């Protein structure tokens, strides 16, 4: 049995295909752009190309993320909060507190032993502390987004950056560059601002170990290191950080599919 999860986020659309016996078969990431329906179709097609399968081979498609209700070929949709919890549980069932930092929002999620959400909290009012925030900072520093993690690990000092507003933070960064603050210190300062904000959310929902992190920002080694330092705890990262939500969606799809099949069996017996 094969199911697909598609996570349509503000910046990127992620997809994953899982098999009930062989686990994760493939995953894919495309930019969402202005048409999230189109990005969902594109990433779905990419998955099929990667696995050599056809649409008819897929038993269930479950969508999540902000664009989850806008996909015509979706069999069901669930919020990304539930999907990230299920996805992390699928990949690492021991995790009890999950931090997911995506393009425009960050979430702290407490998970039970079955991968269900016990409690959650999301950022509000502003995208400071999200992937978009890092994009803005990278642009202001004229560095590549993917180099932020490496630069952060090179820092000797941490520049103080406010975490109130991403636009004002950009101004702060430009001012720090102007007075000769080393770029690694600025990057580490930005990471610290994000992490401090995230830890507040995690502590509010209840910080229970083991801790996990998901979302595109988990690919940034500087952030993960900063989180470990500030929490003084280990932080579990999977090989599929960016697509944890999509894997969770596929996993929920698998459960639904199995439930539907067993109902069919009961119905046939009756």
């Amino acid at each position, binding site marked *: 049995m094969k199911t697909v999860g598609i996570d349509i986020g503000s910046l990127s659309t992620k997809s994953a295909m899982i098999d009930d016996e062989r686990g994760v078969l493939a995953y894919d990431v495309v930019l969402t752009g202005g048409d999230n329906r189109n990005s969902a179709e594109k990433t779905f097609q990419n998955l099929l190309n990667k696995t050599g399968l056809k649409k008819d081979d897929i038993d269930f498609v479950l969508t999540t993320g*902000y664009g989850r209700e806008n996909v015509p070929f979706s069999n069901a949709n669930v*919020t990304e*909060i539930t999907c990230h919890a299920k996805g992390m549980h699928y990949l690492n069932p021991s995790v009890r507190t999950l931090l997911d930092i995506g393009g425009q929002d960050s979430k702290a999620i407490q998970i039970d032993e079955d991968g269900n959400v016990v409690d959650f*909290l999301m950022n*509000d009012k502003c995208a400071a502390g999200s992937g978009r925030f890092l994009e803005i900072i990278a642009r202001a520093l004229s560095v590549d987004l993917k180099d932020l993690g490496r630069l952060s690990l090179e820092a000797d000092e941490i520049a103080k950056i406010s975490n109130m507003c991403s636009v004002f933070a950009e101004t702060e960064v430009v001012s720090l560059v102007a007075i000769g603050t080393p770029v690694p210190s600025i990057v580490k300062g930005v990471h610290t601002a994000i992490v401090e904000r995230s830890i507040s959310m995690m502590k509010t929902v209840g910080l229970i170990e083991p801790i996990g992190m998901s979302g595109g920002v988990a690919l940034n080694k500087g952030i993960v290191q900063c989180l470990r330092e500030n929490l003084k705890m280990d932080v579990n990262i999977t090989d599929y950080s960016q697509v944890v939500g999509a894997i969770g969606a596929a996993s929920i799809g698998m459960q639904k599919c199995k439930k539907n099949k067993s109902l069919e069996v009961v119905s046939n017996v009756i």
Partner: protein
Amino acid sequence: MLLNKEDLKKEIQYSNIIKHFDNSSHLETDRKSPLKSSKMLSIVNSYEFFKTYSEDKITAFVGEQFPHEILYAFGISPVNLEGIAGLIARSDKVDEFLKLGDQNNFSRDICSSLKCSLGLVLANCYPTPNLLISASHPCDGFVKSMFIMSKLYDKEILSIDVPVEINDKTVIYLKKQFEDLIDRIGKNLGITFRNEVFNKIIQESNNARNYYFKTLQLCETKTLPDVFHELMKIAMVGTWGLKETTSVCKKLYEEALEIYNTVPDGIKKNRIIMHGQLSHYSDDIVKYLENSVEIIYFAPLLNANELLDVNDPLYSIAKRFINFSWNTEYMIKVIKQTVPKLNISGIVFLCPWGCRNLLGMTTILRDTARDCGLKVLVIDNDYLDKEKVAFNHIKNRMDAFLEIL
């Protein structure tokens, strides 16, 4: 920020508010209650509000929790500023008043309820009050707003200090302030506090609350459509002591009983408590959640616990005032009592921007709710200023909350 004294005539102010209502319409999301008691309440509210525009009517600006019983004993008509902000929130012209606040240096981070009230004053839509009465709780921002208004109208402001703790000593402390307040109102306005009228008003207040309790009890075991919402509206208006309020509560009880006898046993959907500021039916959040859950509003739960002592009414009014002024200890008690009694599954805290009181108490109440086994959702919301709310962001949180329920 000045008001032209020539314009501070009730005739002009009445004309201004009527123009506002004539030119506005209810939001599309509004829906009407089928209950007769709801219509009765609207008529009573309208009558009580518009009579404050009569030149000979003595009026006082007060907050939502202020005990109206004291003012009725003087023959004073209270203008409940927060309640009216809630009413204005239902019209599509609310932005005009918020902008007036913004344009007069009222920070965008200040609660919209206060900003809307000040906007209404600046638009010269309120009747000029004879005095203003403020209390240190639940909202210190409200005290500051009242102070600004008192300067604009050039009227005296009387203030009381509401203790945080509740015990015999603090209740007596507040009771003494009410006695002083009664004395000051009398001297300030040259009017008399009529004890015999006050006693009748206390009895009337209790009569209304008796019907209120009985209606609430009917809601414990069965889903009674629209009834809890009416209880919330009555609590928001706070006109305890009026005969008309007793009639509304009696009618609501009769209608609730009729529904109770016709609907099947049990609760149809998961029940959640809705805590925080919200406006009647015009709120998209309420409407969206009601598709999946039954909403139990928090205000009626607070109001359902206190009858006034006819032998020492000021003592019991003081006690009620401390409890109702968003006393966190009391709220914890109410949540703990309500969860098993009404079979509650979750709680939504609506925290408006700029309301430090709600944001502060939510921290504690959230823990209480979790200890009671409730699923919790905290929403940053603004029921007046739509520019501060992105429904899609909130919808995502609500969907996740409904999933975990």
